[in-house]
């Protein structure tokens, strides 16, 4: 199955190297891989590479290359799945996955690899199972403090306790020091949706889809049961009907194998006994039929004078969220014709920022309140604009290379599908007296929000 596994830093230095079958040419392979990867001509797929009877399969994870090699005709899916599972596992055990944590925890990583893969065959990837075998403790960079308020999260957590979960809380190793019992009782439940939208130049909606997942990170002792209650009007498939309103509809749902669905049909309750560590409880997706209006509409108008090479772009951005909600870190990216130079801009409010770079216009808005409207007027010159005015393209047509605009943003406390977690209940039998902290968060962000111009 797998001949070798290695982790390279973004610069190509080997951080971890492990040979499982002894059938391959030693650690030069890692170097070979990096040379091959960086020497790739554009367009060729770097996912699966072949060299000298050896196949390289890799993923990139927070700047690191996780690479598996094999010499047989195995399933690339299982290797890719395994690599991403390893990334999660290493994250679970080392706190987070990056160059620093890996090089601090070399011994731990090797120990993990030994247990996950034997002779190149996958043994287990469950955090819970592996706990029994792992001896080494993770080395964390700095001691973690729950009350370290300097690192307040990007968005506040909505919980009964109404306290703020520090953003670093979730990036703490699952196996933090055994002695420290008090910090263990925490559960993080995130509903995260990714929104892909494609809007045609005439403003009509070509395509919209939402991919969502409910992620759980648990520090509770394993074996404790928990109930996750979802919105009761939650419907699966086109035909199902629940509640009186339009309902919250998704096209397809898949659950983690440990989820007990006995009460899902009747009450939309998921029951599970989560292992410690990260877990995707549920994945769902819906397309075409969004219950709420799109969060943003962009109204662009472009004036292009090919004679003088003057290009004027007026962008109006309307946020259609409910007035109480807001969007954060909005970034608009608009590719421009080659060689565009000067730029004069008029922006509707002072906290915005716009600049030219890498052949595109970047417009940053830190925060937009629901229902508000922002605009920007940009003027630039396209030098050496080709085509004499006599039989060039008609003046109204935009020059080549302009658009499409793409938006990226985050919508805290908002799900595009409307799905909410009603409650998160823990049934406690074994654990100590301390009431566990439960953090429930909802978040939507853009995956590809593209508006053609």
């Amino acid at each position, binding site marked *: 199955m797998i001949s070798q596994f290695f982790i390279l830093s973004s610069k190509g230095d080997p951080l971890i190297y492990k040979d499982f079958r002894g059938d391959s040419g030693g650690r030069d392979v890692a170097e070979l891989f990096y040379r091959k990867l960086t020497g790739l001509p554009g367009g060729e797929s770097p996912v699966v590479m072949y060299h000298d*009877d050896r196949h390289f399969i890799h*993923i990139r994870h927070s700047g690191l290359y996780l690479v598996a090699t*094999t010499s*047989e005709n195995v*399933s690339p*899916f299982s290797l890719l799945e395994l690599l*991403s599972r390893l990334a999660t596992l290493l994250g679970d055990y080392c706190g987070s996955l990056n160059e620093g944590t890996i090089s601090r925890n070399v*011994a731990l990583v090797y120990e993990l690899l030994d247990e996950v893969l034997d002779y190149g065959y996958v043994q287990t990837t469950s955090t819970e199972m592996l706990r029994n075998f792992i001896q080494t403790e993770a080395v964390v960079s700095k001691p973690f403090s729950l009350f370290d308020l300097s690192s307040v999260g990007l968005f506040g957590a909505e919980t009964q306790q109404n306290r703020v979960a520090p953003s670093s809380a979730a990036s703490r190793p699952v196996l933090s020091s055994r002695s420290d019992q008090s910090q263990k009782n925490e559960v993080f439940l995130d509903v995260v949706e990714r929104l892909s939208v494609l809007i045609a130049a005439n403003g009509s909606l070509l395509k919209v889809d939402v991919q969502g997942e409910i992620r759980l990170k648990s520090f509770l002792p394993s074996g404790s049961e928990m109930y996750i209650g979802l919105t009761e009007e939650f419907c699966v498939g086109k035909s199902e009907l629940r509640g009186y309103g339009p309902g919250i509809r998704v096209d397809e749902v898949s659950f983690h194998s440990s989820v007990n669905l006995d009460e899902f049909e009747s009450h939309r309750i998921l029951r599970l006994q989560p292992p410690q560590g990260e877990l995707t409880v549920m994945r769902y997706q819906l397309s075409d039929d969004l219950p709420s209006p799109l969060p943003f509409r962009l109204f662009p108008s472009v004036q292009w004078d090919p004679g003088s090479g003057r290009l004027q772009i007026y962008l109006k951005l309307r946020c259609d969220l409910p007035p109480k909600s807001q969007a954060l870190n909005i970034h608009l990216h608009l590719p421009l014709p080659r060689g565009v130079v000067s730029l004069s801009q008029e922006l509707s409010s002072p906290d915005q920022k716009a600049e030219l770079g890498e052949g595109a216009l970047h417009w940053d808005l830190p925060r937009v309140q629901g229902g508000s409207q922002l605009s920007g007027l940009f003027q630039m010159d396209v030098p050496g604009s080709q085509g004499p005015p006599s039989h060039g393209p008609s003046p109204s047509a935009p020059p080549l*290379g302009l658009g499409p605009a793409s938006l990226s943003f985050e919508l805290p406390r908002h799900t595009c599908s409307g799905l909410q977690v009603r409650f998160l209940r823990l049934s406690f039998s074994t654990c100590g007296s301390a009431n566990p902290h439960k953090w429930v968060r909802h978040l939507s962000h853009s995956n*590809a929000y593209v508006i053609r111009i």
Partner: protein
Amino acid sequence: MTDSKYFTTTKKGEIFELKAELNSDKKEKKKEAVKKVIASMTVGKDVSALFPDVVNCMQTDNLELKKLVYLYLMNYAKSQPDMAIMAVNTFVKDCEDPNPLIRALAVRTMGCIRVDKITEYLCEPLRKCLKDEDPYVRKTAAVCVAKLHDINAQLVEDQGFLDTLKDLISDSNPMSINKLLTALNECTEWGQIFILDCLANYMPKDDREAQSICERVTPRLSHANSAVVLSAVKVLMKFMEMLSKDLDYYGTLLKKLAPPLVTLLSAEPELQYVALRNINLIVQKRPEILKHEMKVFFVKYNDPIYVKLEKLDIMIRLASQANIAQVLAELKEYATEVDVDFVRKAVRAIGRCAIKVEQSAERCVSTLLDLIQTKVNYVVQEAIVVIKDIFRKYPNKYESVIATLCENLDSLDEPEARAAMIWIVGEYAERIDNADELLESFLEGFHDESTQVQLQLLTAIVKLFLKKPTETQELVQQVLSLATQDSDNPDLRDRGYIYWRLLSTDPVAAKEVVLAEKPLISEETDLIEPTLLDELICYIGTLASVYHKPPSAFVEGGRGVVHKSLPPRTASSESTESPETAPAGAPSGDQPDVIPAQGDLLGDLLNLDLGPPVSGPPLAASTVQMGAVDLLGGGLDSLIGDTNFGAPPAAVTTATATARLGAPISSGLSDLFDLTSGVGTLSGSYVAPKAVWLPAIKAKGLEISGTFTRQVGSISMDLQLTNKALQVMTDFAIQFNRNSFGLAPAAPLQVHAPLSPNQTVELSLPLNTVGSVMKMEPLNNLQVAVKNNIDVFYFSTLYPLHVLFVEDGKMDRQMFLATWKDIPNENEAQFQIRDCPLNTEAASNKLQSSNIFTVAKRSVEGQDMLYQSLKLTNGIWVLAELRIQPGNPSLTLSLKCRAPEVSQHVYQAYETILKN
């Protein structure tokens, strides 16, 4: 305390310092030191000098430290085998440690130390651990057996480890399908992948079993692990082949397959890419699964380029009349993006849509014209290349756009675009007023052009000359002299000469040849060949499906590579034959319709090395023949949709034929063939009666029946052509696809007089075995194209293998004995020939006349054993032992051959010869 500082120390005395620390008394210090050593090891520093010191640390109760030391051992034991032996005692001791974790650790590490000497010590502890009370230790020990097998397979068998392993699998019949299906619900996701892959290799008895397996596999489609999903898809795709299409269940299954595939496309780009490569195969096999899911393949702005290109490909495959408007709108958007590669591919895709969906052609052309108006260089060039293809597909429809194309003549700098433009000018020379000026402008830099452009320019100017002879005489002379006298390129020179000769001898014939009507181009030129596609479907979810190559093409040494094929569709009443006697999917018996559709064959035939074989009997040069050859060459050539029109690659041969034009037409050769076919079958090997190969309904009235004969060293194909149509047939020509033994016509098909309605002609076509070779399935399959003035027809037939048995196939006795022993036993195949009451003498004689030679004879216990040898045209020897028992009509035949795949066919040859 962090480990990162270990990476920073590079001072000289480092090794020395570490040594001191390793020998320290304090446990903590030792542990830190070993950690440092391992960190150095990872970054590639040589710390093997510390071997003895590290091994000394092994004697410890601290599990963490022990693990670290073992890690070090695994890395360096190979380079220091003698030192590694020092550690053996500790290993053996650890294997009996009360802590199961330590036992497992020791067994695992020992397996990873690939030193021969250690393996001897390994056996005893391993045997104990295989029977350990702790499941974790047992599991680790089982994997260790696999490791040991890799190092020393013999040892594993001698020690009986395999039997112990079998005991571990508590079930007595592990391959029972039901067990597997049950296990599917019980094991981890990684195990499920193995089980599903295993299921995919199983051949269900009938469609009912296939359906029940499908039903139990379907729930896996919603698994979170994409590898499980894809393996399940593979099982379903394979078993669906067996289900009847009318079944309700078939439709349900189709519907169930779409959502999981769509879901895969929302994963990470890496997974998406692999998924798309697989979907590409699935779409080609069963487009109906995803035909309503076009939207998910729309390219996202932030997709990586490799995902974009793959999506584009699938979009075109799914394009149909229903969704073409949507697709075109998308493609037009893509064509204005920034990435050059992607834009090119998008433009090309528009052209492919036009060719695929006729109703959309007009819109595609106008879209392309819009794109040409952008004046972006690479867009224009790409558009011109695809417009040329559109002209080929829909002649005389869109010529109005030529004027626009001509405006852009100057901006073309890529050979492909220039060649395409020149083709267009030449093809429509009569409608372009200044065609001669345009072509002349290209001619100026003739020698700097690429071959593609030069060839095209030559042909275009000749076309122009034939259309407007008066004004362009000078131009054509200029290009002919450039091509023939000033060029080093043989292709160009030959093409130049043949045009020259044609024009000077017979301008009318030249016109017929050069301006011949071109066959339509095929709709999809880039489809994967059907047989390969079927094989790849069996490999869904493996690397083969990503490369779109069969595993034999990239897996080392072909170890464990079995050619897989889809199961045949069966009804529950009839059971399939067992796979040993007939490879699944291969029809048995002389079925002339091995190839279902003509279209599929087209692709194969186009890869043919065109032109009659030169190394056969000398060409009988006659004008009639030459015309036929040329037309066939030209016709097939232009089918490729390539830009080489008019002069085929066969020009070399034809040119030689032309050179001999003056020679008297020798009819001796053909007389000889008539003679042989007249003398008939008395002296040669057995000849089967003629069978109908191509029924008249399938070939617009031409019926072809035939058989194969072998006469004194030459193979021929005896054909009987019957004209059942109402019109006269002329211009016959024949061509074979590449086949297993390189059979090829040794002379053109000679039908001397036109074949009038209801007339039958018998003729014999001499064959040789110097054609190009490609392994066919079944081995003796031969795909044939026959052309006449009406059309080109395709059929395929199976030739009896005995026509390939050569006359010098008698092996020396000693040699026979040695070879028989030398060929491994697994290559031996045994067959029964029933109902053949022959005595030894008669059988031997009969076989002898078909070039199966008896080397020795022996009588054992009332049985006669004949030892026989034969040789195939490609030099493969087959050794046979034929056992004849007087009074028993069944004969037993054992065959040994280094290429065991021929055995089945040799057996069939034996049976045919002996029974007739």
